[in-house]
């Protein structure tokens, strides 16, 4: 294993540990960016003979950080997980209430506006809807 690979693996382990240790996303991202930045800095100080490993590892570490952010979001917000946890506690989750809780988020994230009665997409929401239409069709998830 070359020096670049060893440092790359150490950064991967550091991001994995940060995933479990850092309670807040901002802290996790700071730690991950520091690890990726440290790796890139290390690569810059080498003679450039292992450039491909540097590029491959940098892409992998960056993707790993972004992916783990999504995993954190899934663990914290998944309704299927809510339902599973409720079942484990011998209870049933109020599905409609769980879904309804996301209505406010369309407004919070400026995807939709609420006039007191109805929700309507904002310009940003309309752009997102176009991208989502493409993504849903490509993955066979469109209605």
């Amino acid at each position: 294993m070359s020096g670049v690979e060893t440092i790359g693996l150490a950064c991967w382990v550091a991001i994995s540990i940060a995933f479990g240790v850092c309670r807040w996303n901002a802290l996790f991202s700071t730690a991950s960016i520091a690890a990726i930045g440290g790796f890139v800095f290390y690569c810059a100080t080498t003679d450039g003979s292992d450039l491909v490993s540097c590029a491959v590892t940098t892409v992998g570490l960056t993707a790993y950080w972004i992916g783990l952010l999504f995993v954190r979001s899934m663990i914290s917000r998944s309704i299927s997980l809510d339902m599973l946890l409720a079942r484990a506690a011998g209870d049933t989750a109020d599905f409609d209430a769980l879904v309804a809780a996301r209505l406010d988020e369309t407004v919070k994230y400026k995807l939709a506006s609420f006039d007191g009665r109805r929700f309507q997409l904002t310009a940003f929401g309309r752009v997102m809807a176009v991208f989502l239409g493409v993504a849903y069709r490509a993955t066979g998830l469109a209605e």
Partner: protein
Amino acid sequence: MNGLLILTGGFVASALAVEFGVRRKLQSALGAVLAVHAAGFVVAAWLADVGATAAVVFWSGMFVCWFGIRCHVESSILLRMVYLLRHGPLTGADLVRRYARHYGEAARLEELERGGLMTKTSDRSPLTPKGHAIVRIATFFRRWFGAAATAGRSSARDAV
């Protein structure tokens, strides 16, 4: 940079193979997804002239990123609501009703059963050992991350 291109190509090919070959929600077909990617990784890493450790770091990172984004697109309620609003304004109740029709409680329970996390019987403890393991892990992380599963429910209920 051929190594990076070959690995990227191998990863994209594996992702496409999953897309066309696995016709279930990714979360409930994890075994098949991992098998496809393991095969893709072995071939791509063999063809690419890159160190094994760098290739593993690349593939694991890309896999987690792809899996996270794909599952999010697949299951995100927020994104689906934005999509449902594309034809015009809707009331909160309409949105919830349409969402439930698309991927309601029954469909989610069915997916949990298909993923081997729950059994079909509705006795007092319908979770499988795999389901219990997921619950333990999720409970730990939710407590640790400080996630409030019930946050925001009351105000949203008003909208409905």
